[in-house]
């Protein structure tokens, strides 16, 4: 039994894109306990509902996260639309689904790059991000923005994408599919990469459920949980089935995200083929009154949106709970018994987005 030492990890650390602090209690080189603390970048975005009208608030909610900005905008709009009993036109739903799945592809490619960076594979990191640029260009072409799109609004979407451009997106995705496959094969088959991920930080199905893990973390432990199954968007019409892995380790979490990249590309292809003509938005009249909860599957997992209105154009309360918030307890569980050298990789496998978490 070695001497216990506490090693502070973060909030500034080369592997962390965003600040989270962990006190790692270690014995020799093994982590015995990890105590997380957050609160470095709280922005108080929820409080802004008191100053921004419900239709303007979507610009604020989009800025909760730079990666899943579209998903957050959609989640907020879904909550307010539910509150006001607004039925969104089918074409708008299709477009929302396509943009959301594109976000998932770029989010997972970003994460794969960061993961490669975490175990010191710099060229793999660069190549993942190079491919991600293609997706960002598609966003700029269709929405006008690379990170913040401002296309989702209460009642539909603000910009239409013609079928020719949608076809171009599908062609573009199919063109880079082989390249993505080439890169993701490295994560799946390369021996040196597998040494860092296989069997590391195993989270059993029971533990994943007990700690309320969401998204790819839960699905990599064999938990069938995906908010896309709940009828949001047009996933039912696209024949969506969630990706499940059984391993529960870093390798399984990587595999889930890799399979989701290809699944998203397929979903976009099917949606682009089946998109109906029609309106992209309906006029929303009146003010929100009542309470509503919407749940969305963001690239990182389930996000929760609660909206409460009392008949004025300002909402009384808006609450966003993001996936990282849910995955931190699972991370603490994974870290117990892990090697100190594996901590960066483990922290990365929950795809932490601390800015989202603290809003």
């Amino acid at each position, binding site marked *: 039994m070695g001497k216990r030492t506490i090693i502070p990890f973060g909030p500034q650390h080369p592997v962390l894109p965003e600040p989270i602090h962990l006190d790692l209690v270690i014995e020799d080189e093994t982590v015995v306990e990890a105590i997380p603390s957050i609160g470095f970048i709280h922005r108080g975005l929820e409080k802004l509902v008191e100053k*921004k009208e419900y239709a*303007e608030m979507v*610009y*604020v909610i989009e800025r909760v996260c730079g990666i899943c900005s579209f998903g957050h905008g959609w989640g907020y709009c879904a909550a307010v639309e539910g509150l006001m009993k607004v039925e969104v036109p089918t074409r708008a739903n299709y477009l929302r689904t396509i943009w959301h799945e594109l976000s998932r592809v770029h989010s997972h490619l970003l994460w794969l790059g960061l993961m490669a960076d975490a175990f010191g*594979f710099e*060229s*793999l990191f660069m*190549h993942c991000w*190079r491919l991600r*640029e293609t997706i960002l*260009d598609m966003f*700029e*072409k*269709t*929405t*006008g*923005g690379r990170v*913040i799109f*401002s296309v989702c609004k209460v009642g539909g979407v*603000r*910009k239409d994408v013609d079928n020719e451009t949608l076809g171009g997106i599908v062609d573009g995705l199919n063109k880079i599919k082989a*390249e993505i496959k*080439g*890169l993701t*094969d*490295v994560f799946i*088959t*390369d*021996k*040196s990469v*597998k040494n860092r991920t296989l069997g590391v930080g195993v989270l059993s199905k029971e533990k994943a459920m007990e700690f309320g893990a969401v998204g790819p973390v839960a699905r990599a432990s064999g938990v069938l949980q995906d908010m896309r199954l709940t009828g949001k968007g047009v996933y039912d019409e696209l024949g969506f089935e969630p990706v499940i892995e059984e391993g529960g380790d870093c390798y399984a979490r990587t595999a889930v995200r890799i399979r989701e990249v290809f699944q998203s590309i397929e979903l976009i292809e099917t949606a682009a083929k089946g998109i109906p003509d029609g309106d992209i938005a309906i006029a929303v009249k009146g003010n929100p009154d009542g309470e509503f909860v919407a749940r969305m599957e963001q690239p990182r997992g389930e996000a929760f949106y609660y909206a409460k209105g009392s008949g004025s154009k300002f909402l009384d309360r808006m609450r966003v709970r993001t996936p990282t918030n849910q995955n931190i307890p699972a991370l603490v569980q994974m870290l117990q018994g892990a090697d100190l050298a594996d901590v960066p990789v483990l922290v990365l496998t929950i795809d932490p987005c601390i800015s989202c978490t603290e809003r």
Partner: protein
Amino acid sequence: MGTFKIGGVVLKSLFNKPATLMYPVIPRKWEERTRGSIGIEEASCILCGICAKKCPTHAIAVAKDQRTWAIERMQCIQCGSCVETCPKKCLRMIPEYTAPGTEKITDVVSIPEQQKQPKPEAAAAE
């Protein structure tokens, strides 16, 4: 053999041209929809102030008495609300960012006096 899976990709990128652009030698290509900056066509502005009212970040200020339309470029988030709501369609989204700067500059545009109001029939004909 599992190792060096990325060898082919790395070898290819050794001989390919760089993925990045030599900016600013090679200028950036803007998309038609790029939300760059807000532009105004002074002649048709009627100083109604709807753009200022609809701006979520209060970046636009309209002074009717001084006949000016002003925008704080750093405050603007290029959401396009003003462009959508402008009744005269004199605001537009320019697909090019404004130049970076060290100071927060407010661009003030003087709005010329409107020409004699066209008669309703003439306006309808237009």
